[in-house]
C-alpha cells in the first residue's frame, strides 16, 4: 500500500511536470502557415510576420508566394504569422523584448525605419540597395528611397509597393444634390471653395451627414491629416522631418475652416469614431463621403456598397492636392543568426525583385509597384480600369513625413487635438499644444 502511494505520487508529479514543460514549449507553429518545407536537416527556417496589406493578410495568397519561393529555394522553410493593426504592434513589441522577434516583417517605414530601426533592432539592408535598385525606385518616387533610409544612412526597409490615400464621395448623392458641378471629374480634384460649396449643396438637398471628421483614435488618421493640411496647403513637417509645422498660418487656417464648417452644420465631427467606423457608415450610405479611402478599401467594401464610391483627391486652395502615401515593404530583425539573415534577404529579393514574382507580390498588396521597371502590373487584368483611377492620383503623392521621429506620440496628440478644437477650445492654442507635445517626443526620440 505504501509503495503504491509512493509510485502514484511520483507519477502525478511527473505528469504535472510534463504538462508544465508542454506549456513552456515552442508554440511558434500554432497559427502559422508552414511553407513548403523541402529543406533537409541543413535547411534554414525563417519566420515572416505580415500586417494585412491587401491579400498579404490572406493565408492562401501568402502560402502561394512561399510555395513559389520554395521552388527556387527548397532549403529555406518559411513560417508565416498574420498580424492585425489592432494588436500587431503589441505582438511585435512583446516579441522584441522576449527575444522572439520574427526574421522578416512586412510594413511601412514608420515602423521598420523610424521605430524598430532607430532602436537598433533591424538589419541594415544597404547591400540590397544597389545602384540599379535605387535608380529604378527613384524613377517612381525619390521619397520612397528616402523613407526607407534611416538618418544614419542605413536602409532598414526594402520596399515592395506604395499607394496614395485619398477620399471618396457617394456619386449619386452628389448628383442628386447638384454638387457634381464642384468637382473636376477629369482630374478628380477640387478646390477648398468648391468643397465648401459642395457641402452647402448637400445640406440644402437635405443630406443629414455630409462627412465626418473622425477623431476617436489613431485608426486612419492619415485622412484627417490630409484633409486639414490640404485645405490651405499647409506642410505637416519641415523638409528635414525634424519639426512639426501644423501651427503655421496655413495649418491653423485649415483646422479653423473645419471647425467653422462643423459649427455651420455643413460637416460633422465624432470623437467616438475611427476610420473603420466612418468607412462602414460610408459603405451603408449614412454619410456622403469618406476621408479614409484608397484602392484597398475600395476592394474591401465593394460587396457592401450599392452606389458609386467615387474616389477623389482632397480639396486644396490651389486645386493641386498633396496626398499622403503608404509605402510597404520588408525589414529583417537582427536576431544574431547570419544564416537566417541571409535566408531572409533571399526571400525578400525573390518577393520584391523576381521578374515573375515581383509584380505578383505587388498585385497581392492591391497597391502599386515602387519600381518603374514593373510598369503597369494591372494591365490586362480585370482590375485595370479600377486601378487606373488610383494610379492617376499617384503624381499627387506628397512628402512622406511619417518617418519623423516621435511619430507614435504625434499620432495620439493629433486626434486629441482634433477633439479639443471641435469641443470649442481655441484652435491656435490647441494646435500649439499639439506641436509642443509632438516636438518633445521628436526630441526625445532623436536623443536631443
Amino acid at each position, binding site marked *: 500500500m505504501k509503495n503504491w502511494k509512493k509510485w502514484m505520487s511520483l507519477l502525478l508529479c511527473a505528469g504535472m511536470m510534463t504538462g508544465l514543460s508542454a506549456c513552456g514549449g515552442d508554440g511558434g507553429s500554432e497559427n502559422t502557415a508552414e511553407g513548403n518545407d523541402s529543406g533537409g536537416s541543413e535547411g534554414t527556417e525563417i519566420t515572416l510576420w505580415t500586417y494585412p496589406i491587401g491579400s498579404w493578410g490572406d493565408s492562401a495568397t501568402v502560402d502561394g508566394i512561399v510555395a513559389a519561393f520554395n521552388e527556387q529555394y527548397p532549403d529555406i522553410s518559411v513560417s508565416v504569422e498574420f498580424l492585425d493593426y489592432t494588436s500587431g*504592434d503589441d505582438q511585435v513589441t*512583446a516579441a522584441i523584448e522576449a527575444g522572439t522577434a520574427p526574421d522578416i516583417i512586412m510594413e511601412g517605414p514608420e515602423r521598420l525605419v523610424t521605430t*524598430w530601426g532607430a532602436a537598433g533592432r533591424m538589419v541594415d539592408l544597404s547591400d540590397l540597395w544597389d545602384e540599379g535598385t535605387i535608380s529604378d525606385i527613384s524613377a517612381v518616387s525619390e521619397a520612397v528611397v528616402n523613407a526607407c533610409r534611416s538618418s544614419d544612412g542605413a536602409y532598414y526597409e526594402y520596399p515592395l509597393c506604395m499607394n496614395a490615400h485619398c477620399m471618396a464621395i457617394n456619386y449619386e448623392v452628389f448628383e442628386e444634390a447638384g454638387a457634381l458641378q464642384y468637382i473636376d471629374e477629369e482630374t478628380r480634384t477640387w478646390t477648398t471653395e468648391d468643397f465648401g460649396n459642395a457641402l452647402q449643396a448637400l445640406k440644402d438637398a437635405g443630406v443629414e451627414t455630409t462627412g465626418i471628421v473622425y477623431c476617436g483614435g*489613431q485608426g486612419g488618421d492619415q485622412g484627417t491629416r490630409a484633409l486639414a493640411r490640404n485645405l490651405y496647403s499647409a506642410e505637416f513637417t519641415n523638409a528635414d522631418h525634424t519639426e512639426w509645422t501644423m501651427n503655421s498660418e496655413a495649418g491653423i487656417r485649415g483646422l479653423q475652416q473645419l471647425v467653422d464648417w462643423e459649427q455651420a452644420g455643413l460637416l460633422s465631427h465624432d*470623437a467616438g*469614431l475611427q476610420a473603420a467606423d466612418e468607412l462602414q457608415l460610408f459603405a451603408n450610405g449614412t*454619410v456622403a463621403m469618406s476621408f479614409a479611402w484608397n484602392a484597398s478599401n475600395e476592394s474591401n467594401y465593394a460587396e457592401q456598397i450599392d452606389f458609386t464610391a467615387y474616389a477623389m483627391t482632397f480639396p486644396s486652395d490651389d486645386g493641386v492636392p498633396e496626398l499622403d502615401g503608404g509605402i510597404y515593404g520588408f525589414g529583417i530583425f537582427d536576431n544574431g543568426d547570419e544564416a537566417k539573415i541571409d535566408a531572409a534577404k533571399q526571400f525578400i529579393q525573390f518577393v520584391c525583385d523576381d521578374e515573375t514574382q515581383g509584380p505578383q507580390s505587388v498585385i497581392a498588396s492591391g497597391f502599386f509597384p515602387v519600381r518603374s521597371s514593373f510598369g503597369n502590373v494591372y494591365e490586362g487584368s480585370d482590375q485595370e480600369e479600377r486601378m487606373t483611377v488610383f494610379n492617376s492620383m499617384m503624381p499627387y503623392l506628397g512628402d512622406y513625413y511619417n518617418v519623423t521621429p516621435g511619430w507614435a506620440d504625434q499620432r495620439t496628440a493629433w486626434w486629441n487635438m482634433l477633439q479639443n478644437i471641435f469641443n470649442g477650445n481655441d484652435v491656435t492654442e490647441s494646435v500649439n499644444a499639439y506641436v509642443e507635445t509632438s516636438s518633445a517626443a521628436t526630441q526625445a526620440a532623436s536623443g536631443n
Partner: protein
Amino acid sequence: MNKRMKPTGMQKALIRRETISAYLFLLPALIFFVGFVIVPMVMCLVTSFFNYSMTEFAFVGFSNYVEMFQDEIFIRALLNTILIVVVAVPVVTVFSLWVSSVIYKMNGAVCSFFRCIFYLPVVTGTVAVTVVWKWMFNRYTGLFNYVLGETGIIDSDISWLGDERTAIWCIILILLTTSVGQPVVLYVSALGNVDESLIEAAQVDGATSRQVFWKIKWPQIMPTTLYILVITTINSFQCYALIQLLTSGGPNHSTETIMYYIYYQAFRLYRYGYGNAMGVILAIIIAVFSAIQFKVAGRKND
C-alpha cells in the same frame, strides 16, 4: 493532562516522507506561480526605477514616480479609475444581491434560466459584448439614439462615446453588465446555503422578512460579499479592454484609466520603466482598497 509524546524514529521518518511528498505535489504549482507571478512582479518593481525603453536601460531612482504625479494625464486616469471603482463596486454588489434574493427561491429551472441570463455577458467574451454595445451607442445608426429620438426624449443624436459628458458613464454601464454575472451566481449559491432551520426559528419567534434578511441571511453570506467586493474592486481598477476597444481613452482623456495608460506608455511609446512604475502604484492602490474591505467586511464576518 495532555502530555505531548515525542515521536519515535519511525514516526519522524514517516512525517518527513509525507512532508516531502506534500512539497513535491506543491512544486509544479509553485514553479508556475514563482515564474509567472512573483518574478514578473519583482521585475516590474525593479525596472520601475529605470529609464527602460527599447534603446535604454539606465537607473533613474524615483524619477518615474516623480514624473507620474506631475503627469496630468496620469492624474486624470487615476481619477477616472477611482470614479469607475466607486460607482461600479457598490452598484454591482447591491444589484447582484437584489437579483439573487429574488431568484434563489424560484424553482430550479427558472433560477438556472436567470443565472444563465446574467452570466451570459461573462462567457460571451469582452470583444463580442463590446461590438454590440458599440453598435447600440453609435451616433448615426445606434439603438439608443433611435429609441430616444423616436420617443421625443432627445432632439438631436448624441455621440455617446464621443462626448466627454457621457463616455465614462457608457463605459461604466457596460462594465456593470459584464460584472454582475459572477456575483449573481455566487450570491444565489450562498443564499441557498443559509441554514433554513435558523430562518424558520426566527420566523417562529416573529421576525419580519427584513429582520430575517439582516439578522440571519446577511451574516451568513458575508464571506461571499467580501469576496465579491474584493474581486469587483480589482476588476474595476483593471478596466482596460473596454477602453481599448471603444474609446482609446478619449474624448480628451475622459475615459483614460490607469491600466490603459500603462498599456499606452509601454506598448505604444515603449516606455517600459514608466509603465511599470504606474503598475506598482496601481498594485499598491488595489492592495490598500482590498485591505480596507477586508478590515471592514472581515470584522463583521468574525
